[in-house]
């Protein structure tokens, strides 16, 4: 059973991981805690469900969901991120949360508050090794998540655009001095992080065969926790954090009980923030110059 629980934890962690990476892109580069990400995660799942329900082939439905999430994210950039530059650092939080509430309520009006069943893509999508059950969809999503992250970290370190993004992450001012065009970079980052969140939402729908207007909240908050535990702004930190949070959640449930999950997961987050705010992988925040 222990091995089954480890498998379960890794699978859960792979979902958290993608959401954490989406958060980390927004916060590490743009210094924006984007609370619309849980909403975009939900849009990924719900729009894919809507597409399949309309009779679209699943590939078309998925593509449509990704495109919709990207479009919404552009609106978030335009209405929540851009006008707030130079204002209170907390202000974008309000509007990005506004987007979360808006998206949830729009889906609620369209599909109701019920959890909906997402149709299985195959009859039995599971590998069975002895007693051990591994979902193929879950395995595929773990592989896809890791592939995406590997590609992303290669992109950031080896390409010109990637280096530009890293410069911005180090210091927005330096980046502007070096001629990085923020007004074209920010929308791209928003689209990128929306695609990651929506992909996670689609994988969630396929894995757990369910969607609901509120599916983003729980996963989103765990994603934020994963990002911080790993180290804000670090992609591999988000990966590590996601898998760790997934494992801790599953182990808490199987060893103690579901009623302590919030205590262990968020207790760990609190502890990390107090003892090592930079996370497991990540640099300490530096003191400003005069």
């Amino acid at each position: 059973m222990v091995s089954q629980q480890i498998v379960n934890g890794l699978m859960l962690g792979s979902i958290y991981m993608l959401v954490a990476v989406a958060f980390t892109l927004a916060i590490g580069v743009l210094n924006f805690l984007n609370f619309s990400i849980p909403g975009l995660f939900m849009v990924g799942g719900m729009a894919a469900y809507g597409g399949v329900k309309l009779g679209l082939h699943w590939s078309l439905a998925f593509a449509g969901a990704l495109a919709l999430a990207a479009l919404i994210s552009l609106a978030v950039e335009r209405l929540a991120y851009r006008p707030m530059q130079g204002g209170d650092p907390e202000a974008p939080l309000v509007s990005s949360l506004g987007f979360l509430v808006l998206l949830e309520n729009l889906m609620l009006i369209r599909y109701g508050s019920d959890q909906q069943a997402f149709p299985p893509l195959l009859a039995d999508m599971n590998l069975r090794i002895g007693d051990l059950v591994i979902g193929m969809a879950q395995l595929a999503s773990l592989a896809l998540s890791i592939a995406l992250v590997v590609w992303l970290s290669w992109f950031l370190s080896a390409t010109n655009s990637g280096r530009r993004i890293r410069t911005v992450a180090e210091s927005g001012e330096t980046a502007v001095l070096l001629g990085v065009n923020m007004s074209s970079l920010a929308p791209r980052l928003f689209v990128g992080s929306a695609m990651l969140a929506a992909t996670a939402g689609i994988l969630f729908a396929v894995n757990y065969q369910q969607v609901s207007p509120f599916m983003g909240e729980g996963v989103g908050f765990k994603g934020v926790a994963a990002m911080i535990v790993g180290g804000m702004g670090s992609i591999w930190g988000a990966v590590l954090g996601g898998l760790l949070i997934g494992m801790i959640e599953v182990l808490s449930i199987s060893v103690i009980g579901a009623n302590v999950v919030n205590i262990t997961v968020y207790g760990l987050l609190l502890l990390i923030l107090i003892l090592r705010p930079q996370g497991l992988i990540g640099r300490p925040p530096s003191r400003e110059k005069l």
Partner: protein
Amino acid sequence: MNKLPIFSAAILVGALSTQAAGAQELILGYMMAKSGPYVSLANTIEIAVDLAVEEINNKGGVGGRKIKVVKFDTAGDPKQATTALRRFATDDAVLGVIGPFSSSEVRTTFPVGEREGVAQMSMASSAPGLTKGFTYGYRNTTDEGLVIDQVIAALKAKGLPAASGVAAYATDDVVSKSIGATVVPAMFKKHAISLKGSVDFQYAAFDLSPQVAQIKQFAPDIVGLGSPPEGAVNLAKELKRQNVSTRVIGGTTISDPELPKRMAGAGDNLTIGTTFFPDVNDRTKAFTAEFAKRAKAAGFERTDPNQFDASVYDIVYLYAEAMKNGSVTGEKAKLAAERTAVRDALAKIKNLPLLEGSISFTDGDAVKPVYVLEVKGGKWTLLDTRMPN
């Protein structure tokens, strides 16, 4: 600065309360949950309320007076529910209140109703002991302990395997937890089922793989489930995925006409107790047909009535009966006395034949038949009909 809220709220009140001014009508308040977390469960209830009121009024009303319903959306929020009740009690001069929906709302509105002296009857809250200590608080729901008792008794009566069991429940939901932590172990003991262990999950859990991995270890004949319908769907799917064949049993919390469809092939043998089944007799069939017609016309996706729709339909009839027995006139001057009369008449109702079966009240809770249903071939089928003893 301080005038702004009072001013603007006053405008609102003026706009809303004019509709409640009818003179010789018998007014009931109805707390809806048309937005918020219970929408899908609760949004068709209004159809059942309107249907029952229409039927009664078409037959001449109560003692020649028509029933009128004033409605207020609480969004399933306990705070807004108390606002609704205050409005019904003070502004709308209601004789009784239909609702509220959820247990959390009941916990905040029953004390208000007790102070204001106006009866309420909930159609959905089934947490144990909610009416205790309240003389104006009623529920047309059945205590989950009684329901699960009858479900297990039905299994035993039909000779189905039930020698060992596991309890599974959501820990952060009042009703679910009391079922899983208290009711199921007690009922297992009563019916000599060995309790092999228990697993729990969070109300909003989507991933039940760790819990099912544990259930697999216990290999029980039945799993006693305390959970909302979502938990039942997720558990059924995960049981199927991990190849665990066991019978899941539960109470009214997972009673949902759509459940077999939502489980998409999983969940065969899921057995629950509920208080409404469409195919019991001509009356239930007629109600189901009329409800479906109206739900379709209103554009709802679900057209089958659920247990709450049926419950609320009966609540309107229960109030009508109580107002008749209490010789209520609807005159403003006698309001307080007539509200108390309605309350006292409700308490005296015995074996009134209604849609859900024969209904009586004990300590504010309805006593009515329990229909034990089983999922077979993707559909609910009636396994047994039992009367709580």
